[in-house]
């Protein structure tokens, strides 16, 4: 298993990001990634990223600023409609590392 850190961003930095964090952990484990999720609100992205080592940012609230770390729109994980698309987007970024 490869260890990866993913920042999960939602409005309050709690509820939806926790859902996303769990989903990513579960789904990406099947592809050989051990995900360490960190949850943040859009206002705390910068301070959360300061810890370093993040491979990507999974957002369910818009993050407009470019932090030099790839972003994935993770809303599909909440609706289940585009779940695979979100996972594919993440894998594309993770596999390229």
């Amino acid at each position: 298993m490869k260890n990866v850190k993913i920042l999960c961003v939602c409005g309050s930095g709690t509820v939806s990001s926790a859902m996303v964090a769990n989903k990513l952990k579960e789904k990406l484990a099947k592809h050989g990634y051990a995900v360490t999720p960190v949850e943040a609100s859009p206002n705390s992205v910068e301070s959360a990223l300061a810890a370093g080592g993040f491979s990507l940012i999974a957002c369910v609230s818009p993050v407009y600023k470019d932090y030099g770390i790839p972003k994935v729109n993770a809303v599909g994980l909440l609706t289940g409609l585009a779940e695979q698309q979100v996972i594919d987007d993440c894998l594309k970024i993770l596999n390229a590392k």
Partner: protein
Amino acid sequence: MSTITKDLIVCGVKAENAEDAIKTIGAYLINGGYVKDTYLPAVLERETEYPTGLQLKTIGVAMPHTAGIHVNIPAVCVAKLSDPVEFRHMGDPDTKVQAQLIFMMAIKDPDAQLDTHQKVMRVFTNEEAVEELSAASDKDKLYEAAMKYMG
């Protein structure tokens, strides 16, 4: 403890718009002592900044919520509107969602209540559950469906 209690199951809510829906449904959480008076204004403000509408395959839903400081007792109010109202979509505020099922969450400690989130989330991704909840014609049927999939 079950996520679902019957006094927080509401069917046939009439609402003009999202704000109206949040106020009407939130009143059940306030009257039951689940949340503080500050809960409603906080949810409304949060919904403006970080909308919670989600377009599912067949219907639109919304899951208004706010920070734990406004919550006394963790709970989820499951409400079905008589007619959908417009919410803005999570992650993309320019997209509108006609939401008819509202899962209003009173979350006190997100880490301790992961189970609750997961139950709500599992409903969103479960077509059968969404179908049964949206087909519920009265409080009893909505309660039954909510218990079945979220209890």
